[in-house]
């Protein structure tokens, strides 16, 4: 009977797993993923030892090593006696990460005015009247289909990709900010006016201040669409970047590079998300 009580705990809303349980349970699916992958890889390699579709651990290791320590194929080779630091900073992965990160952060910077526009739309009725309908409509345009126009307007360099990201994500972010700001009770605005606040005081010190943590959360949710648009742009036309490399490797089934790259992108996005979450907690402990 005692064992049933223990098992029953797993399906109990009021169950209180101990720290050891929560820690170990949270890793189970990772282990299952690794296990399923390696089984699949082993089966494929039994049939064809040179299989490249599901690379084995040693193939992956080789792939990671060359990506992390060796320069990209289009760059000059390093001296044989280059230090590990030089190897790391001149590697294919470092080059691709830097160029993709540059585009990514440029787009994020350009999203700041978009957020502020959303805020102003919610607070100032004339701004709302002027912008809201257009942005609601513009938001429904599938940004990817604009690519040919973007290439003509912004050339085939970095700007076309940055604008694709901005056009893809900004309307969503604007509307989200708009909704958040609209949800601030009207009474607070009235109250602030009675306390001699100016228009900008109310916009920035009453409304923005209290919705900022939610805006940051919204940015966190939009990291992935940003990455998707970046990837789309880089896959279509580029000469460096993480998605460029994945696209090139795809031409000859270089999954030994592609899989580490995909995991690396996931780690980067996860890191950025954690950073924003952490910053949010420190900046807004009251939230």
């Amino acid at each position, binding site marked *: 009977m005692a064992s049933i009580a223990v098992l029953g705990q797993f399906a109990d809303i009021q169950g209180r797993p101990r720290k050891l349980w929560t820690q170990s349970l949270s890793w189970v699916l990772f282990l299952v993923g690794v296990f399923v992958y390696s089984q699949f890889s082993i*089966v*494929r390699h039994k049939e*064809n*030892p*040179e*299989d*490249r*579709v*599901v690379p084995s651990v040693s*193939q992956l290791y*080789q792939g990671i090593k*060359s990506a992390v320590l060796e320069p990209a194929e*289009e760059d000059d080779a390093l001296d044989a006696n280059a230090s590990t630091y030089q190897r790391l900073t001149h590697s294919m992965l470092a080059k691709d990460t830097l160029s993709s990160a540059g585009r990514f952060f440029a787009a994020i910077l350009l999203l700041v005015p978009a957020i502020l526009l959303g805020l102003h739309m919610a607070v100032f009725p004339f701004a709302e009247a002027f912008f809201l309908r257009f942005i*609601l409509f513009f*938001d*429904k345009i*599938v*940004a*990817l289909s604009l690519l*040919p126009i973007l*290439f*003509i307007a912004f050339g*085939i360099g970095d700007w076309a990709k940055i604008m694709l990201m901005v056009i*893809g994500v900004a*309307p*969503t972010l604007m*509307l*989200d900010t*708009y*909704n958040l700001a*609209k*949800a*601030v*009770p009207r009474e607070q605005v009235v109250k602030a006016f009675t306390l001699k606040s100016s228009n900008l005081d109310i916009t920035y010190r009453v409304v923005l201040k*209290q919705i900022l943590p939610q805006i940051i959360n919204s940015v966190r*949710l*939009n990291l*992935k*669409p940003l990455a*998707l*648009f970046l*990837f*789309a742009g880089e*896959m*279509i*036309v*580029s*000469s460096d970047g993480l998605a460029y490399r994945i*696209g*090139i490797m*795809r*031409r*000859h*089934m*270089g*999954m*030994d*590079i592609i899989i580490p790259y*995909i995991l690396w992108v996931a780690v980067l996005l996860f890191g950025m998300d954690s950073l924003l979450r952490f910053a949010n907690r420190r900046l807004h402990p*009251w939230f």
Partner: protein
Amino acid sequence: MHCRIYGNHSRSLRDAAGSRLFISVCRLCRSLPFAALVTLISVGFVLEAPAHAAAPTFTVGWSVYAGWNPYFYMAKSGILKKWADKYGVVIKVQRFDYAASLDAFVGKNIDACTMTNMEALDMPAAAGVDSTAMIVGDYSNGNDAVLARNNLTLAQLPGKRIMLVQKTVSEYLLERAMDVNGLAAQIPQLHLMNTSDSDLVGAFLGNQSNQVAVTWKPLVSQILAQGGNVKPLFDSSKIPGEILDLLVVRTDILQRSDGSGARFAKAITGAWYETMTQLTAQGAASQAAISGSASASGDSVASYKEQLRTTYLFSTPKSAVEFSESPTIKQKMDLVRQFCFRHQLLGQNITSVNDVGIRYPDGSVQGKGDRVRLRIDSSYMKLAEQGKL
């Protein structure tokens, strides 16, 4: 503390979230992990599929290209069915995007596939899938071209941005162009811009600052038709026989113990040369074949004929056999395999170009004899030549 209930504004919020989801789904379908997952799942199905004894079925993948469009006509006109019935097999012909067809072939989801000699080397062969080229269909005789604005010359290309689909025959053609003109030393200075073929024409024509592009027909024709000051600098007719278009089949299919693989090879070879005969016949006889092949890619008959002019078809089995048994093909293949090795297309862990061996009809092997991965096999074409199919 503010209120977190959205109240009146829930509708626009839902719209925003919906569009975000839609965008994500759109991208997911095009993203690589998704493609990889589909490959994995479909590979899984193939492993599970039981081998039926009755009426063995074979699937041939093809993609749009002047030299491969006849496969579409061949299936539609009933020529293929006639030959398949003769040899007691069922042959399905399926259209793919080029890259997807190669993925499917390497993943063993299809049994035979059309591809160039370069991809035959760097996709299936380099991935350890022993492959046999059983029909040497044609070579590009001007279908691929280096295009430039403003009367640029090849010597002026270094430093200019060059738009092309990297690691394909386009890059091969560009390097050969430099090489043939004594500019091999300049190749590392070329600034390549990897550009998807679906957006290349628009992006190149849309901006005058894009001065050089390397691509294939019909994109070449589209660019030349619209770009006033664009001229071809070099094309594949200057390197005849190097960009070959093949029908490649997995070697283990040909060697099936019940002989069904060999019957499949005979059936499709027979059907192919019957189609070729129709296509190259004089006058009205060829009309159906040409318009049928043109419709495979949605081209007009005139445009398809224009593409055929720059495609050297080995229209008779005799010419195909002669070419595949000649010493020339070995020289051409050597250029291609050296290119693949230089660009690491044979894989990260391949340390020598000889690790991917090529076997020729006379039994000679380029590379290591114990690592033969690609076989040029003229035997089925020869049967066609001798009328024994």
